[in-house]
């Protein structure tokens, strides 16, 4: 079985600053893959590289067997056109720390936007699916509300529904609960747990160790742009091998 995401020696620099210094990892289909680590360790950058919001500087990164951002012919790499990149992004859903809902559209319009505009779906079909998705994230009654009329947790659940509307094969979560009140975190994690149970492949950058332990299939601890330790979340979190991991976990647990 081909890996859903495969990274081999992935490097990323912003100017002179090297943020990723050679990441090797593999995410299997239907796997819930958690990325933890201190801020500035490069985990969000790595996530953004997967759907080409950031370009990698060196190494190879592929999603579902296809290179991200490039096409290989012989031993030469050709940069993909913007339209080709956009085509590949359809299959990858992304959820942001700050939600990034479209504020001028209601919740249901946010969810309908991509299917209608990108896939050219009929509005009635898109609306029916959007209603179903909002119901799934527990917000059927908020369909007509603008994002400013929703709480942070509700906004993030709409954002998840919006990403799911494109029926992606891979979901990327970039610290989805970090901007939320502690009370609201649970609702979002419940939705994510449901997704995991349905067999969605998920890469989750998170500080929620409880979620990683319960739902995660694998876990990677990153620091300073490299993978320090990886393995089964229950093993890594309860019995870390590396000193750096121990120090980090002792602070957050």
């Amino acid at each position, binding site marked *: 079985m081909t890996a859903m995401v495969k990274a081999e020696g992935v490097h990323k620099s912003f100017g002179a600053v090297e943020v990723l210094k050679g990441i090797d990892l593999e995410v299997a289909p239907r796997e819930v893959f958690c990325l933890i680590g201190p801020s500035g360790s490069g985990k969000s950058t790595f996530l953004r590289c997967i759907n080409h919001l950031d370009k990698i500087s060196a190494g190879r990164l592929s999603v579902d067997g296809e290179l991200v951002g490039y096409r290989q012919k012989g031993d030469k790499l050709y940069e993909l056109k913007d339209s080709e990149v956009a085509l590949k*992004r359809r299959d990858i859903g992304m959820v942001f720390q700050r939600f*990034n809902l*479209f504020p001028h559209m209601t919740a249901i319009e946010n969810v309908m936007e991509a299917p209608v505009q990108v896939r050219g779906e009929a509005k009635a079909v898109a609306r029916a699916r959007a209603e179903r998705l909002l119901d799934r994230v527990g917000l059927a009654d908020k369909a007509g509300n603008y994002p*400013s009329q929703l709480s942070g947790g509700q906004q993030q659940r709409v954002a998840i529904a*919006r990403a799911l509307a494109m029926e992606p094969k891979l979901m990327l979560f970039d610290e989805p609960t970090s901007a939320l009140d502690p009370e609201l975190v649970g609702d979002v994690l419940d939705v994510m747990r449901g997704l995991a149970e349905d067999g969605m492949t998920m890469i989750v950058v998170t500080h929620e160790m409880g979620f990683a332990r319960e739902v995660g299939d694998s876990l990677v601890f990153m620091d300073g742009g490299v993978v320090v330790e990886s393995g089964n979340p229950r093993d890594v979190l309860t019995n870390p091998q590396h000193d750096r991991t121990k120090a980090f976990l002792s602070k957050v647990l």
Partner: protein
Amino acid sequence: MTADVNKTDEPDEAPTPAAGPEAIKAIPVRHYGRYVSAVIAVALLASIIYAFSQGKINWDAVPEYFFDDRIINGVGQTLLLTVLSMAIGVVGGITLAVMRLSKNPVVSSIAWGYIWFFRGTPVLVQLIVWFNLGLVFEYINLGPIYKDYWSSFMTPLLTALLGLGLNEAAYMAEICRAGLLSVDEGQTEASHALGMSHTKTLRRIVIPQAMRVIVPPTGNEVINMLKTTSLVSVVQFYELFRQAQDIGQTSGAPVEMYFLAAAWYLILTSVLSIGQYYLERYYARGSSRNLPPTPLQKIKSGVFSLRRPKGVTA
């Protein structure tokens, strides 16, 4: 259920929390300065009006020509010119703003150069240049589609439109650029992550949000444009100002006709300001929890709040 139990158990306690503390009745601060300054302002205004009414101005000429056919025609032409020039300005401005923000250095330089030139020269000069471009280009030749002398191709309307519209585009470009930059980068990222193209992202996500920032200064530009159209009399275009001037020369009331034109400009700009209010309200949707009431709603709620006490006592 529980409410019923409480009621039957403690019938005397119920009214106490409902009454609450007594409303404050205090004597408000008297603002004597306000009364004095208001009286002075009114007196000054009255004396100015009186001075004008006593001047050697034939005021009767203003109402006489106010709805003259030529004036009404001029008002129409002024409005037409304003709308069309602003349309050119807005479309051109958004295009130039997107060009300036483009990663392509050729495209952004072209936009920069355009704005540099058209913002840096007086619009009156630009109008005269457009009018006299026949000195440079004798013919206009678009192959099989169109061929004519430049002087007959460049009608006064076209000259006025190009002169005002292209100049306006340079100003609108800066307004639009500010608007586009005001939209959070996360919006573009979210849109790209959903697989939307650059163009779709701009049209569906960024521009509608940028409009909140773009509309208020654009309203200002429209009002400015309405008045700037008075310049196009130099290219033989007959709008409000030119018509008033012509009537003034034949009727022997030249200054009076300028006052008449000024009154019309004031009426038109007032109407435009109302339009701007509603446009701003439209683009504010989603950004604030409660939209401000429209003037009509304000009047309605005012009427209701006057009625309500009556209903209570009756």
